[in-house]
């Protein structure tokens, strides 16, 4: 039996040993550059667990939004997919559903994301490249051919023209005889982060926000199961931000949407439960888990205490996660399978509601079918084989994770104050505040890799001179653009030109006279107005966004 040692003596002893110890030549910080202590103890952990943690399914939801978490239902495995023409992506969807995927997620090409038709001159070279090309209701019908829209949940990653794309989706369901009330899914529709990070916008912030409140109002009444905004940190992080910036800017954007909804007269509890979130899961395992936990706690408190929401569903931050594209390397691409698996595990331990795992070949091209299948199988292995899904918030109470959770919450709070001091989210976009913050972090990160302070296997350590990657890559058929052009010509000759003109005029009027624009877009979709035609009316009436210069 050893004699009990007083805790202060133990600490002194440990400190003494630590001071003497020879340490590895490494940078002991988080991936975001925050210094870490060698060990965390009770004084660093959560001091008020009743107040700040609670239990899963209880305010402030630090430990998860459901009491049973993954015992009730596993996270939704939702692989983002889209390329070429609608019928090609339709085949990939059918493949993914057959492989056991439980939700669909549509990636669009750049012309679609920017509101241009596939036969527009400006779209040359980009049609179907990074996602599927959707220019009309007909394209949307081809995309969902044979897929039961009332049974699958669909996520659509589009922002500038999001209300138009949602109109195509609703119109498509209506044509199939499906009640929009049965539709489940999410439209990203998060324009604020477009100006900050991802850069696919259509019109300036104020009219864009008006369209978003139109979507919230319309869906509350007619498409009640639809998530009307997926407030996204993913692109902020991928553009170079730190974990704290991702957390802070995303939640600041979320609060801005809440203010806008309230300002047009919506009851916060009528629309807040339909807002969801989307975060990155990067390689810093514990910082990411802490970020997800902090996000839930901050949102719950802001919603209840600042915005006066009464419905617990308004307090709950539900989120989708995607593993970090930027963490993947072109060198030794098979290693990306391992990186993605760690990131996926962090997302699950952080309590995500749905997950996309990146494919190993994404630094080279869009993923091949084989690479996508391995990425999906990674999630299935996590869910079925590792036993991690049995216990909610398994890292809750960890001194280290609680300390990181508190630190990230405090850093986010500082940013909220700074954004407010700068006049709010939109003025901070217009003067480039977010853009510059993100850029500075991106350069710092790149420099850290190049100086060897941050190690990346295959890039600055364990490098192989193998003459470059040899895995298969996915190429877009060159006929896609030609076929799309032909399809558009057919559409333009077969539809009723008077109906098109009537609906476009109605949109033009509603831009200024008020009225719900989503309702107008749905009518325009049925009249076979194209994405580009509707977007052009909006560009003419609302003007275009001028990117602030930060370089």
């Amino acid at each position, binding site marked *: 039996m050893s004699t009990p040692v007083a805790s202060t003596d133990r600490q002194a002893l440990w400190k003494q040993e630590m001071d003497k110890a020879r340490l590895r030549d490494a940078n002991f910080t988080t991936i975001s550059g925050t210094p870490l202590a060698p060990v965390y103890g009770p004084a660093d952990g959560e001091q008020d667990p009743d107040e700040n943690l609670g239990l899963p399914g209880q305010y402030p939801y630090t430990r998860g939004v459901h009491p049973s978490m993954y015992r009730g239902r596993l996270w939704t495995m939702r692989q983002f997919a889209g390329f070429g023409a609608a019928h090609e992506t339709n085949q990939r969807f059918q493949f993914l559903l057959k492989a056991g995927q439980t939700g669909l997620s549509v990636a669009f090409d*750049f012309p679609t994301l920017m509101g241009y038709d596939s036969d527009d001159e400006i779209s040359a070279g980009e049609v179907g490249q990074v996602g599927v090309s959707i220019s009309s209701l007909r394209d949307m019908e081809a995309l969902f051919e044979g897929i039961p829209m009332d049974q699958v949940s669909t996520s659509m990653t589009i922002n500038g023209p999001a209300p138009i794309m949602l109109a195509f989706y609703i119109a498509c369901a209506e044509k199939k005889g499906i009640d929009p009330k049965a539709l489940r899914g999410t439209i990203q529709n998060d324009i604020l982060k477009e100006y900050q990070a991802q850069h696919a916008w259509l019109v300036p912030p104020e009219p864009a926000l008006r369209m978003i409140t139109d979507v919230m109002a319309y869906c509350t009444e007619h498409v009640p199961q639809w998530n009307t905004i997926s407030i996204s940190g993913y692109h902020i992080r991928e553009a170079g931000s730190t974990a704290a910036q991702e957390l802070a800017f995303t939640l600041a954007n979320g609060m801005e949407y809440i203010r806008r909804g309230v300002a047009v007269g919506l009851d916060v509890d009528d629309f807040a439960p339909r807002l969801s979130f989307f975060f990155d899961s990067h390689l810093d395992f514990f910082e990411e888990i802490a970020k997800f936990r902090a996000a839930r706690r901050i949102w719950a408190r802001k919603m209840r205490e600042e915005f006066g929401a009464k419905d617990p569903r308004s307090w709950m931050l539900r989120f989708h996660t995607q593993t970090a594209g930027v963490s993947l390397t072109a060198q030794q691409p098979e290693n990306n399978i391992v990186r993605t698996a760690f990131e996926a595990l962090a997302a699950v331990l952080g309590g995500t509601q749905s997950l996309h795992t990146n494919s190993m070949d994404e630094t080279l091209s869009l993923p091949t079918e084989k690479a996508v299948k391995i990425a999906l199988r990674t999630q299935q292995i996590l869910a079925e084989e590792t036993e991690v899904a049995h216990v909610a918030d398994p890292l809750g109470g960890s001194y280290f994770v609680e300390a990181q959770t508190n630190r990230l919450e405090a850093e986010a709070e500082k940013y909220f104050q700074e954004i407010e001091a700068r006049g709010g989210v939109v003025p901070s976009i217009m003067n480039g505040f977010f853009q510059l913050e993100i850029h500075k972090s991106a350069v710092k990160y790149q420099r850290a890799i190049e100086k060897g302070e941050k190690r990346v296997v*295959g890039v600055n350590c364990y490098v192989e001179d193998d003459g470059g990657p040899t895995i298969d890559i996915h190429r877009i058929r060159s006929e896609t653009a030609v076929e799309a052009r032909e399809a558009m010509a057919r559409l333009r000759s077969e539809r009723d030109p008077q109906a098109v003109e009537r609906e476009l005029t109605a949109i033009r009027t509603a831009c200024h006279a008020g009225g719900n624009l989503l309702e107008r877009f749905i009518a325009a979709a049925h009249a076979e107005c194209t994405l580009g035609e509707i977007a052009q009316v909006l560009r003419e009436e609302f003007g275009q966004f001028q990117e602030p210069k930060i370089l």
Partner: protein
Amino acid sequence: MNQRKIRVLIGKPGLDGHDRGAKTVASVLRDNGMEVIYTGLHKTPAMIAETALQEDVDVVGLSILSGAHMELFPRVREELHNRGLDHVLLVGGGIIPADDMAALESNGFTKLFGPGTHTEDIARFIQGEMEKRWAKEAADA
């Protein structure tokens, strides 16, 4: 030895919004003493070539991560040619498969840089190329 600062235009042709790489490279080249002009996003090939002409640049560096490089990179080269700018050092980067890099490098692009490139290597490459060109100009003069 020519002491003139190297003037670089970093351009983002097409609808692609990914500018992390372009802006990071722009900052690094600037830190290396070059004068760098960044076009901003969503520029047409003609707009980029016109800026290159107006700004009298030595180097044009293009970045595309949208897969449109085989369409838009050669069009920028044509637009530069139309303005008598064949002497401009043309480089590029992005998510570009090896075969496409090789094709572009035999079609007017001096060098393509892929993911994982050390940004100082880009700066060194540009510096080295420009010194070669200036040495040749001096010898020809």
